[in-house]
């Protein structure tokens, strides 16, 4: 049977996508040093557990989806996923392998569980997907890992509630663990932590709230899932609502998890960055 080994989270700021190819020189740069220093231990964990598949829970920022048709939850079921420059020049990197058989199993299971998702046989993945993958698989070394993209709408309100996203994660967890093939699966939730790009409050960061979330998501995620979207926007900023992606990731994991690594850094670009490596209790 397939097993969920653990979960990863990281911010997915486009500026990181531009910095990753220059990481070797930037590890000594005062601006980037602390940020990049957090990743080698996380990569060591990825190397150790060697997942066959990564389920990537992210938000599209207007590359694949537009307002003409805006799914709340969308799942990729393609053989391959490509990125694009998104209009402002993020590097295009080698395509990501899909696992359509597992995707369809998850889709069947989710719809059976009353999560009526949109299915995508063609899907461009944007920085919400690619930046975390290139952080945890440096030098684009992801050719041996297959991916299942799970996209959650954070562009157009109403967004799905934090509790709904947490429960979606739980349903994805049940789906994976009922898949008959022996696979090691890691779930990656991207985005966050506090940040706001638009309005007169642009640049808002809330360190106290972020640190509380980094702590509680390990021990008591349901307490965080009880926030409303409006409260998340107020406490974490307009784009800090991306924390719902972390909650969906956490839902996939078991109730008891071990925190392997975590980091928090203010700021890269307009964002307070956070990273977590969690392992399912045996």
């Amino acid at each position, binding site marked *: 049977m397939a097993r969920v080994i653990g979960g990863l989270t990281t911010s997915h700021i*486009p*500026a990181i996508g531009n910095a990753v190819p220059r990481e070797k020189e930037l590890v000594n740069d005062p601006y980037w040093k602390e940020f990049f220093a957090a990743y080698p231990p996380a990569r060591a964990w990825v190397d150790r557990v060697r997942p066959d598949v990564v389920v990537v829970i992210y938000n599209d*920022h*207007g*590359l694949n989806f*537009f*307002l*003409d048709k805006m799914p709340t939850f969308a799942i990729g079921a393609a053989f391959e996923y490509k990125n*694009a*420059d*998104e*209009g*402002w*020049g993020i590097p295009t990197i080698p395509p990501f392998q899909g696992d359509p058989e597992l995707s369809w199993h998850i889709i069947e299971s989710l719809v059976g569980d009353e999560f009526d998702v949109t299915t995508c046989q063609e899907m461009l993945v944007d920085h919400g997907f690619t930046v975390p993958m290139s952080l945890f698989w440096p030098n684009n070394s992801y050719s041996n890992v297959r991916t299942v993209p799970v996209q959650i709408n954070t*562009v*157009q*309100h*109403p967004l799905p509630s934090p509790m709904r996203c947490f429960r979606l994660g739980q349903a994805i967890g049940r789906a994976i663990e009922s898949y008959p093939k022996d696979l090691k699966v890691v779930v990656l939730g991207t985005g966050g932590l506090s940040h*706001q*790009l*638009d*309005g*007169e*409050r*642009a*640049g*808002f*960061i*809330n*360190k106290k709230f972020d640190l509380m979330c980094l702590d509680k998501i390990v021990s008591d995620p349901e307490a965080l899932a*009880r*926030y*409303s979207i*409006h*409260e998340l*926007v*107020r406490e974490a*900023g*307009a*784009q800090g609502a991306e924390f719902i992606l972390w909650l969906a990731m956490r839902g996939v994991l078991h109730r008891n998890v071990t925190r392997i690594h975590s980091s928090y*850094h*203010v*700021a890269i*670009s*307009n964002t*307070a960055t956070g990273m977590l490596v969690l392992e399912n209790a045996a």
Partner: protein
Amino acid sequence: MNVGAHDELPIPGTYIFDGKAAMKGYALNKMCYSFNEARNREEFLKDEDAYCRKYGLNEEQRKAIRERNVLAMIHAGGCIYYLAKFAGIFGLTVQDVGAQQRGMPVEDFKKMLQAQGD
């Protein structure tokens, strides 16, 4: 605690991009979405007026685009994720865009960001 009780209280300096805004800003956002393609960015730069007409921007949206005024674009229904693609044409980052909206120099905006980590 009833966590829903404060849901309707507005958050100062924050715009919720909801259905109402999405309808109002549809043409503007659709134009900005088109900038995912390099050839559309080139077409815009070649003849900005013609490109805005092609997407049916209203006068408020056209003025905001002409003046490169991000807050005015948001008031006209713009969604920051699409507007970022417009800003990208001119090599502007989210920090430039943030500083413009707050009405402060970019260097001060950057300092303000870092100071929130203390």
